[in-house]
């Protein structure tokens, strides 16, 4: 208890010394503890904003293997990189737009698959039953493996003819033994399946934590009022997990949009066009063919394209609008 008193003093001095003059006037516990925000702002500035500004600058210059050594003095090319990014793209002829399209479909399809699975799984283990502990542990197993291990395992599973998947599918007479999952049009689905397998516990865990935070009193009083399980699901469970689920879907979409390791390991470089996701395209352009300016331009185009739906989505779900004063 004594320790806490010291901490309070410390907090107040920090607040007054760093707080703006305006906040000093309002001397209640109600005033905004700006100091709690500072570490985040400082870190964001240092590790995201500044590098991002460098990336913006990079997108306007001709930065390649010849100019990298004096990169500050590399020739200014204006919007040239942006035009290249849209027209011609990487050394494979993959434009930014094509890759953005692959990435967007990949992240949307994957999220569409893992969301119902994750929610169902969370509902299944929400209420106690015998052996629940083990099932919960089991459900987390895929999430424990690093992405690139998942990519390796699924690459072996998907190998043509000799891979387990082709063998099982042909044994079940569902598909030909030569389906070729790792080149051509099927690569997209191979990537989706492997990624869904490894990432659904994300939704599961988010939703489970939200479910667990619903007080049992709510269900009990609903039960007293004569509500059946279905009705209490829709009147209690759904509203309580709505915002977390909305956020989980958003974060999952963005996370999958950024997935580099999985296609990089599963298909290698260069990948089939159907699996040439944006991060892979940027990687090939920047690090394998040393065209940093073009790579940066591709990333910035993506940012602009992605920003609008993301903000729209946040507004629609009113995430972050909740319990403010």
């Amino acid at each position, binding site marked *: 208890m004594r320790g806490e008193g010291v901490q309070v003093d410390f907090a107040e001095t920090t607040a007054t010394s760093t707080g703006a003059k305006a906040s000093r006037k309002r001397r209640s516990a109600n005033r905004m503890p700006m100091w709690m925000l500072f570490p985040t702002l400082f870190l964001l500035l240092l590790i995201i904003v500044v590098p991002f500004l460098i990336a913006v600058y990079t997108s306007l210059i001709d930065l390649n293997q010849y100019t*990298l050594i004096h*990169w500050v003095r590399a020739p200014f090319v204006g919007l040239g990189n942006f035009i290249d990014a849209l027209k011609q793209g990487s*050394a494979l002829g993959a434009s930014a737009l094509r890759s953005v399209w692959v990435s967007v479909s990949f992240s949307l399809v994957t999220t569409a698959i893992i969301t119902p699975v994750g929610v169902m799984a969370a509902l299944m283990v929400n209420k106690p039953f015998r052996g629940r502990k083990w099932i919960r542990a089991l459900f987390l197993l895929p999430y424990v493996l690093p992405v690139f291990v998942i990519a390796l395992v699924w690459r072996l599973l998907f190998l043509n003819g000799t891979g387990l998947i082709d063998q099982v599918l042909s044994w079940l007479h569902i598909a030909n033994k030569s389906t070729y999952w790792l080149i051509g049009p099927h690569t997209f689905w191979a990537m989706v399946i492997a990624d869904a397998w490894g990432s659904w516990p994300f939704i599961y865990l988010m939703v489970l934590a939200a479910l667990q935070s619903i007080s049992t009193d709510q269900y009990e009083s609903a039960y007293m009022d004569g509500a059946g399980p279905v009705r209490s699901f829709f009147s209690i469970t759904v509203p309580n997990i709505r915002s977390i689920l909305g956020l989980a879907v958003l974060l999952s979409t963005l996370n999958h949009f950024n997935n580099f390791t999985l296609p990089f390991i599963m298909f290698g470089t260069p990948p089939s066009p159907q699996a040439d996701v944006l991060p892979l395209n940027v990687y090939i352009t920047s690090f394998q063919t040393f065209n940093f300016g073009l790579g940066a331009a591709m990333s910035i185009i993506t940012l602009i394209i992605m920003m609008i739906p993301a903000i729209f989505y946040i507004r629609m779900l009113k995430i972050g609008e909740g319990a403010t004063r």
Partner: protein
Amino acid sequence: MRKHAKRALLGAAMGLGSSFALVACTTMPQGVNTSNGSAEVKPGGTSTASATHANTAHENASISPVTISLSLGLITSNPQGQKKMVNDMIAKFEKQNPGIKVTWSTWDSASQEDTDIETMTATGQGPTIMDVGPIPTAYATHGFHVLSAADWKAIGGKSRYFAKQLTMSGPSASQEIGIPWEINPFALVYNKKMFQEAGIKSPPTTWTQFVKDAQKLTKPSKDQWGTGIDPADSIDPWHINWVMAKQLGGDFLNSNYTKATLNSKPVQTALSFWFDWVNKFKIASPNDLDYKSTDLVSAFQNQKIAMLPMQSYAFVPSLNASAVKNDWAYAPMPTIPYGMSKLPKGGTPVQTFTSGDFLVIPTYVQGAQYQAALKWINFFTSVPQQREIFNSIGYLPVNVDAYKNYKPLETPTISMLEQAENHAYPYPFSGNWGNVEVAFGGAANQIADEIATKTYKNGDIASALNAANEQIQNTLQ
């Protein structure tokens, strides 16, 4: 009570986290101290060992002004052997050169090698000596010292090294930046037992013979194939196709690297021939179409493939640990193109491109440190160390004298590879080679996809190579 219990739990959780954070924090000052002494700690050294190491370096700072740091590729086939070898060599070197301290670290993969070169160049910071494979890209950055005649003298003179290996050290004899420390020529690996069973006496020397032999060795019902391809690999497709295109009298770029010639006849012929192994001659499994190098290599080790062209000596350790450990052998690559009895006009008898690892010194290394770096390289490429490298990690010496009167280096395989090295030719020394690799890989990938999905038709190879050619031409201008 309930609240207190919860706080205790929270405390436990945060305690766990903060103790880790604390570990991280306490190591900070140590790290800072080491910056003026030995920056990198030897791999595998425990934290206490590294602390004492750093302290001694600190105390000796006034006596030993020069520290050089090496960044070497991790020898994944034998990391333990590499660690012992390098540490022993450093001990020996430091004893001979009391004024110099050597530290070392490793990069673990080809992609890390690329990013290391890029970050070194962009920031002017990093190791004193870097171990790299592809010199053309490193040269294009202008971030590495061009060696003067005096520099070459300090590292034993050019005559110490395989002459063919120096063709990849720089764009010309006066602009060399890389010092080779090993050779890695490519050849044909074959399975002696499968050859015997098929009644084949000796490995093929022409591609026509190669196809004939492979047909005899192929038994699809047993999933046994004469040879294999790996079009999904990042580098293998250009390796073999460049060699075959050179034999046909072509190349990927023109002689002064200003024009892309990927769509030329010889390159088209080479790529068509390669895919014909699956498509027409049926001497490679259709499963190969999504293979990377590692898949092909395991197929050979599991006795499913009888011959693999373009394999280097680096394959040997894993061959010896596999089911074919008593059956493998190396032979020179065939050099006479398919359907021909001698090399066509303009064709070169290429068996391998010049391949191996080089040491480069960044331009931010100056003065005494630069001289110390040359001393280390002289030491590293001299006969005793070159033989030690072979004995410890199995890399073939680049020092020609290392082979003389030394039994371990006189095996038939090594003599054969030594011969192959004399038929090594440099690939185009262009700073845009990265683009060529990617664009050619893309073309190979596209054709493999078409064959797999049965949409391939005549002329597709030409159009894929045309598209790739255009992409490269754009970057050359």
